[in-house]
């Protein structure tokens, strides 16, 4: 079509070209229907179901009894406490280890690209596969980890079989699994810091240690906040790794909310399971929302 032809075609239109109608709202509909039906509807329904005694056979409204039970039964409360332990320790671990790796992998070392890939790869591997592998590696008698520690003369702990230790051992593996993503996000943050800042600091005689705390850390705060938010949300929701490694055991010592939800569902206590879901939702909202709000305020 020629330019002339286009002009006349436009001139023939009685009203001015309304661009808005070329971005039709019905484009929202397919996504909206699936999301609304499969995600929003069950989420709202869970608010009601959490207030019922709901089993395979019947359903009865009981008010807040499920929630009361959650805070009174030790094996349910333990799951709540462990969820916090797991969420906070894994996100702290990922930020600290990830920051160290990010600094290392942005310095001028050889084989930097290869090392970045090696650190990142576990993120892509099936969590169940990782859980099974570390289950064997962490075997207290024959496991490779304790065998290696024995060579250095350390008597390795009972990683997964000790009730006190189990949740921390799983958290350690979660840090190993997820630190690659944290590292890459932090690397992106570090690379955005202009070199001039470091040059100026060097001219003023600042040590590497000072440069790290006075320049690197403050200026990569958005990246750190992102890593914290992501790992908190992931960590609080975690299920796969706990289930593959300990099934919440020994006893219920390493149960987290997500595994409690699964166990109560399996046992047929659907109301209690759903109450667990609602508590998990509130935990995430209470912990993550302030951080997200804080992050957004910083960006403006």
């Amino acid at each position, binding site marked *: *079509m020629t330019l002339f032809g*286009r002009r006349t*075609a436009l001139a023939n239109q009685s009203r001015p070209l309304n*661009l*808005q*109608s*070329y*971005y039709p*709202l019905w*484009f*929202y509909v397919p*996504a*909206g229907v*699936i*999301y609304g*039906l*499969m*995600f*929003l*509807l*069950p*989420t709202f*329904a869970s608010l009601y*179901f959490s207030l019922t005694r*709901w089993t395979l056979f019947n359903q009865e409204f009981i008010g807040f009894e499920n929630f009361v039970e959650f805070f009174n039964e030790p094996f349910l409360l333990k799951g709540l406490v462990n969820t916090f332990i797991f969420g906070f320790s894994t996100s702290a671990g990922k930020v600290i280890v990830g920051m160290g790796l990010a600094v*290392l992998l942005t310095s001028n*070392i050889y084989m930097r690209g290869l*090392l970045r890939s090696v650190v990142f*790869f576990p*993120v*892509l*591997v*099936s*969590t*169940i*596969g*990782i859980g*099974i*592998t570390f289950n064997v*590696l962490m*075997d207290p008698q*024959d496991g*490779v980890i304790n065998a290696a520690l024995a060579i250095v003369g350390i008597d390795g702990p009972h990683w997964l079989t000790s009730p006190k230790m189990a949740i921390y051992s799983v958290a350690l593996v979660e840090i*190993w699994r997820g630190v690659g993503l944290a590292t*890459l*996000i932090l690397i*992106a943050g570090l690379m955005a810091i202009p070199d001039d800042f470091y040059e100026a600091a060097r001219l003023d005689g600042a040590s590497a240690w000072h440069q790290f705390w006075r320049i690197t850390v403050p200026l990569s705060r958005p990246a750190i906040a992102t890593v914290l938010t*992501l790992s908190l949300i992931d960590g609080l929701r975690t*299920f*796969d790794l706990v289930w*593959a490694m300990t099934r919440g055991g020994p006893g219920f010592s390493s149960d987290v909310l*997500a595994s409690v939800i699964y166990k109560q*569902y399996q046992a047929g206590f*659907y109301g209690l*399971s*759903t109450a667990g*879901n*609602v508590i998990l*939702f509130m935990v995430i909202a209470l912990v*993550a929302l302030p951080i997200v709000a804080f992050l957004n305020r910083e960006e403006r």
Partner: protein
Amino acid sequence: MFSTRRLIISVVAFAGALVFFVVPFIFIALTAVKTKQEASLLQLTWPTETQLWQNLVAVIEARDFMMIQAFINSAIITVGSVTLIVLFSAMVGFVLNRRKTSWNKMIMFLVLSGLMIPPAIVPTIWLLQQLGIFRTLHSMVLVEVAYNISFGILLYRAFFSTIPRELDEAAIMDGAGPVTLFFKVMLPLLKPVTVTNIVVLSVIIFNDFVHPLYYLPGDDNVTIQLTLYNFQSMFNTSYNLLFMNVLVITVPMLIVFLIFNRQIVSGMTSGALKG
């Protein structure tokens, strides 16, 4: 002097990465080719006798070729849900970026909720039962779409802001309607971010364990992650087969990573930063 320091740090970093990040995978590979007796020692040693093929066949044949069925099921779920997510999230990202309405804030809130809120499990099962589609592959596809569409929308929305609006205007002047504008003009331009979306979403959905565990109980609809879970108890005396199973589901990820390294890294970090 400076370069010796650089060399030393490099060697230390390399050795550290080898011990912490590579050894577990070497352990998987070595145990997977050992004999049953040797694998049960759980040691990190070179196998005295390798039986790669024999173990592979044993894992594939186990429980009436369950592995094959699982691969097919996982492929159906992954391809089906990724296709729908790519199409529908591109449509949402397009309108969300181009049209400024009072709905935008609300929609962004829903998108971010989709990333944060843990899905309500039992009510979803109840809903699927009411609809009569519980334990079906297509219900799993719909659920994966609902749970992962937020990620796709964020990636697409960000990408659309890099496409100049003049292009839309030119297409509209050439007589394109909304559907032609989106499918014929925009969709081809989205190729880089679509590749990123496809790769990252495929990895996430292929590796999903929790949701098939809840929504696809039973042997007929078993997915690849569930096989591993089932074999964990079944093979607990045959570590060679258990680890061959781990190896079989790890190798595809390694291949995907080697080919799509750049897209995976950019998708996972940028999607994360925007979220």
